[in-house]
């Protein structure tokens, strides 16, 4: 990845974060923490990796993404709008009655959403089914899924992982958003998610650790996943919850936060200043 390409993705990520903050502020509150932590990943996938046709969201042989941590829908909507799946103005209807953008992903309502999620642990199983189906169809299509580290406390995640490993679903790439926090507290204070890499390897996956906020590192990991032909890959992403929404960074209660328009404006201004300094 050259400097221009990195710069392009960085600008897309900054734009996405701004849209996302405004999107949640337009409703007044929302799942900001886990949405902000996966923005860079989503930008990378949708602008550089996935084989998709935004003008034809139901194209059968597309790559698909299941956002198993379905409460982070607002982040995905901010990216889908930028990709042209729907008009950006819809972002301000988030969670309003009659909206096509509910905070938890709904494949029946939102163009570009490949599976409904919200009951944690289920999306990764659906992703296993999708990857299995793509292979059965003989398509070259791939399936991506994003699970939370807190979500990984769900037993069903491991049922899905053992099946995908047993079936050697090499067209399945998972990401664990290892931001170290869940709704109530830091993950370490509840049920720690230790040795994830070893766990996945034991279940027959390739496991790669990467910095979830660094595009060259994301590229390295995702390319390695793409080139792994004998098993699924889990990329364990070291991320920061609320990354880019500065009022939520480094605090415990950043899972879902009230965000006024004034707070949003200041947060966006502060984010631009920080990015400029970088």
């Amino acid at each position, binding site marked *: 990845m050259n400097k221009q390409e990195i710069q392009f993705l960085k600008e897309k990520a900054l734009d996405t974060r701004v849209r996302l903050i405004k999107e949640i502020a337009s409703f007044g509150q929302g799942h900001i923490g886990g949405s902000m932590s996966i923005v860079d990943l989503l930008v990378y996938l949708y602008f550089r990796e996935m084989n998709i046709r935004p003008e034809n969201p139901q194209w059968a042989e597309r790559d698909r993404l299941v956002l198993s941590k379905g409460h982070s829908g607002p982040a995905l909507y901010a990216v889908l709008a930028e990709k042209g799946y729907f008009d950006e103005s819809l972002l301000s209807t988030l969670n309003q009655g009659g909206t096509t953008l509910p905070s938890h992903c709904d494949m029946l309502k939102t163009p570009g959403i490949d599976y*409904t999620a919200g009951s944690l642990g289920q999306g990764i199983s659906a992703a296993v089914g999708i990857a299995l189906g793509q292979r059965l169809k003989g398509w070259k299509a791939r399936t991506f899924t994003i699970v939370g580290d807190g979500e990984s406390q769900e037993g069903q995640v491991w049922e899905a992982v053992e099946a995908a490993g047993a079936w050697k679903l090499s067209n399945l790439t998972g990401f664990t958003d290892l931001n170290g926090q869940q709704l109530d507290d830091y993950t370490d204070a509840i049920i720690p998610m230790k040795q994830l890499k070893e766990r996945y390897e034991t279940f027959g996956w390739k496991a790669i650790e990467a910095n979830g906020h660094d595009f060259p590192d994301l590229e390295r990991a995702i390319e390695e996943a793409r080139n792994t032909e004998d098993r699924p890959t889990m990329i364990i992403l070291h991320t920061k919850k609320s990354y880019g929404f500065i009022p939520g960074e480094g605090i415990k209660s950043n899972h879902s936060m009230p965000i006024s328009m004034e707070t949003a404006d200041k947060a966006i201004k502060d984010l631009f200043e920080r990015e400029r300094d970088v």
Partner: protein
Amino acid sequence: MRDISEFQNYKDVVIGSIIDLAEVHDDIVFLDSDLSSCIGSTSFQKEFPSRFFNCGIAEANMACIAGGLSSVGFTPFIHSFGCFASRRMYDQLFISIGYAHRTVHVIGSDPGITAQYNGGTHMPFEDIALMRQIPNFVIYEPSDALSLYKLVQQVYKRGEPSYLRTPRKGMTRRYDESTEIELGKAITVREGSDVTIIATGVFLVDHAIKAADDLLKHRIKARVLDLHTIRPLDTETIMKAANDTGKLIICENGRYAGGVGEMISSYLIQHDLAPRIRFINVGDCFGEVGSLDYLSKRFGMTSGDICKKVFEIL
């Protein structure tokens, strides 16, 4: 369609019906949860090895995998014992199949007391109530081999998620090609004008017919309806029975709460019909181990129990 007499048990009928569909429709896949030798989906695996997946003892995962397969154009049939095919994977059926509008066909074998020697842990008394809470599931429980074969085919063609209650063992032949078998349309097994016995499933339809025979000795003419489809409910036939006979005995192999009896009573009340009604069901309790004969007596689900209820309201 093939000759039903080729089959030995209901389980062979279910799998045979699905195999016959799968020969024509290449979207059909089968998922089992380490119970393939119990239901005989091993036959499906033999016929279509690439379209069969044994998901192991992980029912919740199986349900969502089926949902995922559905989203790329497959139509999965999935199987477990009824207790696991409902309770154990309930949130998955609710969210990843029902709410997501995925067409997945769930086979719950050995409903209610037909679980017999597997005992209380394996007796789904509440599966009808649970599945009724998911707004788009067809729920059906055929009472003989031919209707089982045909209704599996019709459910596939309907294209909505479904939940099948069927015993694995036994091979009742009640109907022939002259019988009109249609999903959502109860079969009138006996005509009668004094009372209507509505029954679901093999052994309760058996007992309902036996009860009707016994009641005739008392000059009571009982109508018997085989309610093989629980949802969508055949309200037309039920309303007619309520109007014609004014008395209903509603028999189901499960709990009263949320079951067929409650569903029918509620419908009739909302349509200003107030026939006299009595229920045959397991009541408000857990299951226990025993033979079908022992358990049907233990839970008051025999033809004699049906007759007693009829005498209560005549």
